[in-house]
């Protein structure tokens, strides 16, 4: 179920998806933009890692592994 107010992607459960609205951390934003994650991209949390802490995320058609802290700066609606 999509959030109508932008929320941090780290709050998502596996299977939830949304559209990236903005980033809340400039430093991480620079890095995320470089690898092709940007506002307007579709984000879907696919699954969590076996020992917790990292997420398997699909952004547009690209698969990425992101840590909770990295997801927390991505606001999704």
């Amino acid at each position, binding site marked *: 179920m999509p959030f109508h107010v932008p929320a941090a992607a780290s709050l998502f459960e596996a299977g939830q998806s949304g559209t990236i609205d903005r980033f809340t951390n*400039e*430093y991480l*934003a*620079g*890095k*995320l*933009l*470089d*690898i*092709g994650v*940007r*506002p307007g991209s579709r984000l879907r949390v*696919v*699954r*969590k*890692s*076996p*020992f*917790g*802490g*990292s997420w*398997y995320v699909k952004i*547009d*058609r*690209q*698969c*990425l*592994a*992101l*840590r909770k802290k*990295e997801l927390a700066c991505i606001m999704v609606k």
Partner: protein
Amino acid sequence: MHNGQVKATPVVGLVGNPNSGKSSLFNILTGLRQRIGNFPGVTVEKKAGMLSLPGLPTVELIDFPGAYSCYPTSLDERLVVQELTNPEGDLFPDAILYVADITKLDKHLLLFTQLRDLDLPMILVLNMADLMDADGLTVDIPRLSKALEVPVVPVSSRDHRGIAELKEAITDLLRDPNRFRPRQAFFEPGANTRDVLAELRRELPARNDYHALLLTHHAPWLKHIPDATRHQVQEARVRHGFHSLRSQVEETMERYNTFEPIVRGSVRHAGDTSSRSDRIDNVVTHPIFGPILFIALMLLLFQALFAWASVPMDLIEFTFGTLGESIRTTLPAGWFTDLLVDGIVAGLGGVLVFLPQIAILFFFIAILEEVGYLARAAYLFDSLMQRFGLNGRSVVALISGHACAIPAIMSTRTISNWKERLLTILVTPLTSCSARIPVYVILISFAVPPVVYFNGLISLQGLAFAGLYFLGILGAMLSALAFKVILRTPERSFLMLELPEYRIPVWRNVGTTVWQKSKTFVLEAGKIIMIISVILWAASTYGPPADMAAAEAQVTERARAQELSEEQAADLLASERLEASYAGHLGKAIEPVIRPLGYDWKIGIALLTSFAAREVFVGTMATIYSIGSTDDEFRIRERLAEERNPVTNEPVYNPATAWSLLIFYVFAMMCMSTLAVTKRETNSWKWPIVQFVFMTAIAYFGAMAVYQSLS
């Protein structure tokens, strides 16, 4: 800059994002004519090769490390920016082959537009063009070429399509580099950077505005910027309130907005190409099946390592044994024959015998890398690794460390957090590298009885073998944990890992990796081992003249008194001479230190020489025990079993000593090359010294504890 003249050796750079298939293309263009070295001043691996093009001097092709943008976060990426912003440098390319994955153009063109704005002559190479028909992907090449104002060549590393066209395009571009000069920049610096640029534009050695902007961003660390200019830039940045991060984010957003319509206008995706990868990942990255699969893969790997390597290893041992024998029977006896057989042939055999295992290990790791599995392993274990102060990417180093710590340590460059990278470098040599295998093989037979269970399915010796590997991994993790607590840095750490789509490996790449790594091992490690073999042979053959004479006189007397046979007298002479030799003196000197570990002076010599490289242990044993006897050098195990303590007449290699030696070899830092690599990678003598001390201390006290409790 480009005056139409072709240089004596034009430099062409391969640049592109990680996972764009750059290295495959490099392998196709250069074949095996590659030189692997380091970029000057840094330890980033530099792959260079020669490319012959009709009507042009030989071109040097440089495979630059993969980079996402001109705003680097890792050492590899920094190097790309460093070299491409320095027109005076030797590595500044005359032309760039920009490699992009045809299925990911919407992301891979970011760096392209940045380099284009630097006014570098470029060709856009669309790799993985074989996916064009199969997956319903269509790309309007002429349209893309027109919009980007550069030649666009689709190629495939799999079926080699487009390679001839690419070579033609390179030839044309080198002949006329000005033909595709950009008419308009993709990005114009915005209002908040205009002031700082206006001030610095004339001061900086910049070719255009964008070049000046990058120098303004990166002047603090760029090596080719003089200190005076660096200060000037810093002051100007403060004065005009230049915010590097904000400016970077704005630039990147604007670039995406500029090139996205171009990509959308020329690329059509028909179906969802990644569904197959998704299905594989449902299992491979599954929270439960994923780790199980990982462990199964590792078990398979080690099983293969021992099962497949034994035949070629036996063959190599047999060949060198026979070679030594035939040299000894053909050449007249004397010091030269001894040097040849005991020094050089034995040493050479000792190097080459590792080759099958190293080749198999790199074969496996290259496949895992090519398929895309290593990135998944990093994802699976990131959070576990973080608890030990490491990064998910450390898994790659810890796995490859089982082949050889040197490439493993070099693979840590993708870890951008310095502390995580340092810890990985420090603990990786604790994983049991292939050089320890022969030592384990020989010693386990003394430590563990040859018992088998379940009709030979599981052997106790095999279990002990696996146990030693596990001990190495455990040691690495616990050491990392200890360092995590000791070293404190506030630096931010990232995972942000791309999980590339699964692909069938390009066998040519696998083959090239195996070939390159094997060659490097034989040449680099081989040199050290050969030198040590020869030194050791000399040290154990010669000694202080007075001592040697005394030893001979004593043997002659004892032989007469005890009426020894000629053969017994010769063996006695050999062992007495060894004891009186320089090596013997050295061994005796350290005996008090290693006595609590259960070692005698002969083992002491082997330990000392092992500190250069552990694989020397077996060679040393061969050299020490073969002197004066014409036994086959490679049947060391039988020879060691006969070795007895001269005082108590007990076997020297009892289980307690064997276990103590095994523990010592699991933990001790005995590889000069690894220390040299650690020094290079950490850029200081401090860390190799720390590494040597902590590993050797664990080894010494561990071995002592084991010996004292078992004996």
